[in-house]
């Protein structure tokens, strides 16, 4: 046994190498809390405070307003069309990208992302230019008796464009990661194409799909820019909830504006809660990093 032990160095580190000094830690936490409070929580609280400025009666009266109800109805209609369209497109695109090899695949993937990088206003404008009175397809479509611009179909088109990537983006990595062996197994056991899809593929992607639908729905209901350009702001007819908020606010009807805004905020909170729930419960199946 050696009598001499090496002297403990004076500058022994008392914390793990990656841990910051307490002062810095405190500062960073305070900063984060401050930003969260002032940029997220405060505005949200203001929305509800303003909506209830004239009490519950004022809130309910603003909701019973004819135009408000029309806006809510229109928003639900648009979402009810745009979300299923998205689900079908998303599954089809993810299927063909994940399960087949072809030229131009990566180009297609970037193309699907296009709506994320294009300003929504441009997206709305494109449809106005295409289907407007002097647009490329406008006169033709008009001769069939269809109204697209400044009407519900245009709003749906613009919403579909803006929300296009949501489901596909969620499913592509998931399906790529899962590969095709489950489907091959089902086929080799005698299942046809449809049964394989319904009983094997769909259950494998259901949580990822639901997640994509949730995000898609939130965006479809909340979209402002693209819809604003193409809707023409006809009260009670082509005003969605976000547009109605703007109209009411411009008319100094703060309670009306914030009442509808509160519904949108509520939608956001519910979406957030469901999203958190999905992420917590099925994180591995959504992220697509999971394989047995």
């Amino acid at each position: 046994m050696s009598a001499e032990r090496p002297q403990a160095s004076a500058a022994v580190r008392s914390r793990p190498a990656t841990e910051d000094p307490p002062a810095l830690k405190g500062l960073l936490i305070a900063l984060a809390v401050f930003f969260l409070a002032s940029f997220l929580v405060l505005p949200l609280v203001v929305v509800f405070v303003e909506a209830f400025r004239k009490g519950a009666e004022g809130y309910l009266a603003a909701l019973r307003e004819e135009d408000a109800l029309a806006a809510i109805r229109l928003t639900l209609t648009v979402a009810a069309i745009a979300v299923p369209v998205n689900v079908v497109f998303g599954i089809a695109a993810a299927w063909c990208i994940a399960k087949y090899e072809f030229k131009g695949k990566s180009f297609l993937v970037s193309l699907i992302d296009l709506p994320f990088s294009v300003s929504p206003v441009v997206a709305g404008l494109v449809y106005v230019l295409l289907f407007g009175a002097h647009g490329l397809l406008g006169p033709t479509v008009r001769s069939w008796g269809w109204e697209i611009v400044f009407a519900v179909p245009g709003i749906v088109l613009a919403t579909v464009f803006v929300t296009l990537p949501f489901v596909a983006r969620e499913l592509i990595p998931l399906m790529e990661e899962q590969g095709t062996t489950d489907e091959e197994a089902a086929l080799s056991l005698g299942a046809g194409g449809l049964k394989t899809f319904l009983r094997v593929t769909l259950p494998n992607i259901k949580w990822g799909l639901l997640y994509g639908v949730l995000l898609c729905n939130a965006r479809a209901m909340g979209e402002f820019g693209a819809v604003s350009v193409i809707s023409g702001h006809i009260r009670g007819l082509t005003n969605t909830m976000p547009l109605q908020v703007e109209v009411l606010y411009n008319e100094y009807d703060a309670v009306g504006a914030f009442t509808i805004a509160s519904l949108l905020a509520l939608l956001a909170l519910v979406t957030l809660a469901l999203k958190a729930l999905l992420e917590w419960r099925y994180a591995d199946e959504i992220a697509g990093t999971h394989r047995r």
Partner: protein
Amino acid sequence: MDIRIRNIVKDFGRTAALEGVSLDIASGELVALLGPSGSGKTTLLRIIAGLDVPNGGQVFFGDEDASHTPVQHRKVGFVFQQYALFRHMTVLENIGFGLKVRDGATRPSAAEIRRRSLELLDLVQLQGLERRYPGQLSGGQRQRVALARALAVEPRVLLLDEPFGALDAKVRKDLRRWLRAIHERTGHTTVFVTHDQDEALELADRVAVLNKGRIEQVGTPDAIYDRPETPFVFRFIGESHAVSVQVREGKVWLAGQPILMAAGGIAEGPAELHLRPQDVEFAAHAADALPARILSVRRSGPTRRAEIRLSDVEAVFEIDAPAALTVRPGEERPVRILRGRVFPAA
């Protein structure tokens, strides 16, 4: 059900995977497709199953040309390397899947499906696990469920892709014996793919060795091991070393000495002699032997292996050192070549 494979050609874009493969598999036979990765063995198995479509050639199941039958209708049981169990279904639902998806009249009743699934669960010795999900099973158990699922559809042939590839060594050995037993009980014509020669030799009635999209040799494990027909099979099966030799006057010459008296019909000129560690021994006298130096000695299971260098031809290989003999690295010791296989020089 016997399988005849005729002239299968398959390429993936520019790379050829199979270049005209033919193979006959008798009814009830257990055949291994053995080869290194990229030899085309899995592709061949998938073509038999109908999961891949060949560019040319035919697959016969009995007298029926199954080449254009889609996988759903080929009635094959396919066991995937990664099991491919349906993870949202219980073990019992997995096994019963093939029966459940049948159309109307051919679909057994729910009770019948359950009865047969439970019976298969018994066969693969997983009684009591029917309510588990695949995620709650060990690798070996999953493999058994995958096999039961494949057997449930009463397949004409059973095809297994690297069935034990993802398991650890101990489980692998147990499952090997168990698969052999199942095969003997059910009598299915079975083809399995492996890159593990021990697995192929131990399990199969016959082994087909594949290399670069061609079958090099088909034969019983004994034939493959004892009488390799090509240099590739010799190298791939068991340990081996090759030295350059000359064939003259019907004898094999190494460094100016006749080492083997029969060249086995190989044409005169340069050739290659392939040796296993057991084919060379230390000689008692320098006469009629080749001078060699011992480079190292190491333990290998029950025997000791000596790495030696033939002094005259700069060839290094390993031989068995008998327990009675003391051998030390650095020592000069003559060796004698007892036997070997001569192939024409590549």
